[in-house]
């Protein structure tokens, strides 16, 4: 077996194996150390007592790993269920995320549809125009709305000027402003998958439906909508999932009037310095998110299977 070629052969394999090991291990351990381990810590702290120290929780790692994991209690979770602030925040986050997803779909679909119907040579440009805002600062895009929506803002001035209102509307610091902010920042995520689905749609299918006696409207309901369902579902998840944990938009546009869990977590952590409760809030947010994430994954998988 190990003739003339045996020895260099083995060395070659050994170097290759080492390369392969480094290739896999480097990103792997990076993510283990900076993604998975921190999560374990969050779970751990969610199950420990608040303490007036730095770090403000007990027991810490200095007490030894075994102590950290043995002295667990569910006090923080009990606390979350007792204080209705948290309940309300979770429910309100779900409601805001759901309503904004529906609104984004209602506004996004016609745009995606029109893009898919546009002449071929426009489409690349239209696509770029949809993606371009995504590259610009999220914070700035949300900030831009403050000047528009405030009581003395441009929208009120405009409506007053055309005579539609006599009293300025209060939009900023309400849920409406949060909906506008979410629709505005996340609409590209809705448009792109729907556009991708509609662009693939064979125009002759619509013609065939009309040829078989469908009206325009009916063909749209019976052919276009079902065939773009994959894109619709993907778009909805892509808006719903980040909207649920959103922090910047409710903080800037929602004021104190809007309760959202991302904001509660941030405040619990930085203002109240109650780390165990903040961690417990994070754990529950994660648990709520797992369902839509798994549904989203399954939808993507099904799309891929259908194509392959």
């Amino acid at each position, binding site marked *: 077996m190990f003739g003339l070629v045996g020895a260099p052969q083995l060395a070659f394999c050994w170097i290759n194996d080492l390369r392969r090991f480094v290739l896999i291990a480097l990103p792997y351990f990076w993510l283990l150390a900076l993604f998975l381990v921190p999560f374990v810590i969050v779970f751990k702290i969610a199950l420990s007592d608040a303490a007036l120290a730095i770090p403000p929780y007990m027991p810490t*790692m200095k007490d030894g790993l075994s102590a950290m994991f043995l002295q667990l209690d569910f006090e923080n979770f009990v606390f979350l269920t007792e204080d209705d602030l948290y309940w309300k925040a979770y429910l309100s986050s779900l409601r805001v995320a759901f309503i904004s997803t529906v609104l984004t779909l209602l506004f996004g679909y016609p745009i995606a549809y029109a893009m898919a119907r546009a002449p071929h040579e426009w489409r690349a440009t239209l696509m770029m125009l949809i993606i371009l805002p995504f590259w610009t600062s999220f914070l700035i895009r949300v900030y831009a709305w403050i000047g528009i929506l405030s009581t003395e803002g441009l929208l009120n001035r405009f409506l007053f000027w055309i005579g539609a209102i006599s009293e300025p509307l209060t939009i900023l610091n309400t849920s409406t402003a949060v909906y506008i902010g979410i629709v505005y920042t996340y609409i590209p995520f809705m448009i792109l998958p729907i556009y991708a689905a509609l662009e693939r749609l064979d125009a002759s299918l619509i013609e065939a439906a009309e040829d078989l006696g469908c009206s325009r409207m009916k063909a749209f309901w019976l052919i276009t909508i079902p065939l773009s369902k994959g894109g619709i579902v993907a778009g909805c998840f892509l808006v719903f999932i980040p909207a649920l944990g959103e922090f910047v938009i409710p903080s800037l546009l929602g004021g104190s009037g809007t309760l959202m869990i991302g904001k509660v977590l941030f405040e619990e952590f930085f203002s109240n310095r109650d780390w165990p409760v903040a961690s417990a809030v994070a754990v529950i947010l994660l648990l709520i998110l797992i369902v839509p994430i798994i549904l989203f994954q399954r939808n993507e998988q099904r799309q891929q299977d259908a194509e392959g």
Partner: protein
Amino acid sequence: MNRLSPFNVVSLTFGFAFLYLPMLILVIYSFNKSKLVTVWAGFSTKWYGELLSNEAFLDAAWVTLKVAVISSSIATVLGTMAAYTLVRGGRFFGRTLFSGMIYAPLVMPEVITGLSLLLLFIGVGMDRGVMTIVLAHTTFSMCFVSVVVSSRLATFDRALEEAALDLGASPFEAFRLITLPIIAPAVVSGWLLAFTLSLDDLVIASFATGPSATTLPMKIWSSVRLGVSPEINALSSILIGLVASGVIIASLVSKRHSVRVQQEERAAERFEND
């Protein structure tokens, strides 16, 4: 197909107006003379001048740029490695966990990622500052890079690598001479994505940093909480302008390139019987 119905024209017009008007207004009002952002009082560039003499903003911009360049570069290397492992690595122990860790940060709320990293940094007693922001940004942006690169690798004809091996290249040479140049555009856009994500990030940086380092988004955040200011408008306009021109140039270049390739391919077919 060729002519848009009035309904389609209306939805496109309103859609793009909705997307671009707020930014346009922001840019216009950054040239407003008045301190009151909503009242037009004539053209002026004084806010740009004030911005450029504001040390705090300049410091924050410098920190942000440093973090973005370092973190996106590390993230590109790690993300490309991860993509290669996922697409080409075959089976190895913990592959499912690995791909889970690549995809999870994409859908993870920033508050959770930020919180968990902060707890880690405190847990191991790390001084928080530029270094920890770089670590945090690298971690989540490498996942984005890996997604971009692996979608390119998935459509990459594996026979090209095999051909290189067949012609005597070592696996590493095959990667360096064949695979890398061909996936380079995806690697570059991965880097750009990581770079903008890092420039843009407020939440994770707020958690990961300490008193020693403040990034531009954090600086913007603290002044925005106090209300609209013309200085922030000026800063926003600069950022929007930079990004817009970068993206437009990039897309023009890539479009010119693909048009040329198409023309050449068509020309080549005419040589068929040459």
